[in-house]
């Protein structure tokens, strides 16, 4: 990162700068220069990322109703109300956390495994490969609004395409995909997999293409089975992207909002109303911003603990591997 300048170039630069003593070396910027370059970004970043990250804590410590002029300080009461099972706020909150948990638990494994299978099938040279890659990726280019409005139609109990084709092959054709359980979850997870599969597949595919073909040939010559080749060659080759894919998929799933807002409207009942849905509704529709901010911090802490656990899981293995190398 720092050693971008070859030392001899630096030496020449310094030498020529010495000729004109008064001027600083052109290689060393004036102290203000980097900050002038950074200024526009830092202004945005400070106002809309750093400031709100801190302001959120402040809001969460107040009874902050947006529609009232006064926001009395309440300390940790917002958090206590969410954690204390006897308070009215905690029931809906944990119900929504449970919904987020169910969705995450169901969608993350599918979004890790199916795209990998697709990427592995795609990882060969054959006609139409780039075309297929684009086809699988296409739904991801659409927004959650288009995807949800479209699938609400396709999953319509009476006139939807899905039930129609299920009926044609002799399966139940009157499933209420969006208004009954567990089908609402199946629908939300299935649509999300269809929508975002291409994203992870493309990342996996890029990593697979970086694995030298000789490794596979060597494994083949050594008589390794397909399963052994996967664990000995493919899986280690995916290491550089796997942590990103896992953490990113986890965070995106835990932030699910649009699908449930447009497809199930949080129903049946409140069973698919996710945490983000409740936070947005509480804070930006009912304007109970203090409570909503507290919820968002509890959700964030949960997510960060999970992410840290994943980091730790990956780092631990890497450390052991380097350890082995050193011993050799």
């Amino acid at each position, binding site marked *: 990162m720092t050693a971008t300048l070859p030392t001899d170039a630096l030496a020449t630069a310094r030498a020529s700068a010495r000729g004109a003593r008064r001027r600083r070396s052109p290689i060393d910027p004036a102290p203000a220069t980097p*900050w002038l370059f950074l200024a526009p970004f830092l202004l945005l970043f400070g*106002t809309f990322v750093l400031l709100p990250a801190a302001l959120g804590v402040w809001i969460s410590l107040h009874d902050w109703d947006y529609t009232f002029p006064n926001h009395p300080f309440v300390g940790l009461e917002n958090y206590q109300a969410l954690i204390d099972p006897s308070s009215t706020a905690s029931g809906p909150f944990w119900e929504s956390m449970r919904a987020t948990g169910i969705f995450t638990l169901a969608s993350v494994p599918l979004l890790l495994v199916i795209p990998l299978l697709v990427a592995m099938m795609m990882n060969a040279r054959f006609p139409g490969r780039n075309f297929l890659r684009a086809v699988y990726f296409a739904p991801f280019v659409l927004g959650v609004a288009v995807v949800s409005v479209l699938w609400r139609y396709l999953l319509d109990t009476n006139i939807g395409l899905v039930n129609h084709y299920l009926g044609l092959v002799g399966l139940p054709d009157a499933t209420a995909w969006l208004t009954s359980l567990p089908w609402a979850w199946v629908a939300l997870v299935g649509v999300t997999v269809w929508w975002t599969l291409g994203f992870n597949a493309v990342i996996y595919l890029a990593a697979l293409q970086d694995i030298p073909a000789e490794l596979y040939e060597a494994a083949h010559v050594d008589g390794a089975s397909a399963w052994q080749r996967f664990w000995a060659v493919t899986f280690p080759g995916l290491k550089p992207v796997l942590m990103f894919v896992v953490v990113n998929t986890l965070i995106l799933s835990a932030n699910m909002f649009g699908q449930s807002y447009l497809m199930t409207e949080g129903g049946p009942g409140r069973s698919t109303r996710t945490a983000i849905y409740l936070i947005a509704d509480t804070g930006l529709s009912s304007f109970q911003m203090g409570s909503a901010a507290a919820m968002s911090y509890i959700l964030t802490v949960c997510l960060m603990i999970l992410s840290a656990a994943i980091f730790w899981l990956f780092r631990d293995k890497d450390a052991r591997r380097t350890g082995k190398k050193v011993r050799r």
Partner: protein
Amino acid sequence: MTAAPPTAPVPDRTVRVAGHRAGSVVRRRVARYVALYALALVFVSPLLYMLVTSFKTRADATGVTPSWIPDPFTTQAFQTLFSASDTPVLTWFANSMIAATANAVLVVATASMAAYPLARMQFRGKGIVFGLVVAMLLVPGVILVIPNYLIVSEIGWLNSLLAIIVPTAASAFGVFFMRQFFVNLPVELEEAALLDGANRWEVFVKIVLPLARPAMATLALLAFLTNWNDFLWPVYVLFSPETRTLPAGLATLQGANQVRYDLLMAGAVIASVPVMVLFSFLQRFIIEGVSRSGLKG
């Protein structure tokens, strides 16, 4: 590595492996094609059906037996949408276009400028700035939504396109992405220009940016797509019909026409066409940009 294995059996085994391969490779290749193209069909058909339905009549769109050919073929749904005053789709389209374009320009400009000193200059505080950028990449966006609503309301941008354009332009990802690109550019040209007396700004504009065009195009595309598709923030920040962007507008449209699937699909088509056109022409940039984002960790 260890003791040399006996040499004789090796060619023998290779031949057997090769012979075994020839038959199963063909079979496996056919199976692969069938699976991949079947999956492709599953992927495209919903999008195709959306397009088909948008050219159907109301009755045809809600018929009990779904059909793949509009009968009769009509642009009635689009005409109804274009003339409805409570769901001004064309205004939403213009709003989305303006917001996504302005946001992409802002992201590319600020991120490129910020990434340059982070890639090429030594200065006090560099570690802190870069550390903050990386830290904020990992913080889930949820915690910013409520306070940003307050900030935007304080500035007076509620229910205005500026609320969609400016706050999301603070792109830590963009800075990261551009820095990665700059670090990998050869430094010699820049040094030569500096020694010839050019200042940092001239070097940046005349040498670095022209070389960075592919990265800037990719970042602009990703920013445009993200902004075009953004849903939660516009839904809550833009509350009157004429200020909405397309995704937020689709929510309004669905609320107003629960089972008018002809209208809903026409709206969805309008929201999809620009990004699909961009994607079909520039898919290599987009896909490569995304696959590179996986290596950022």
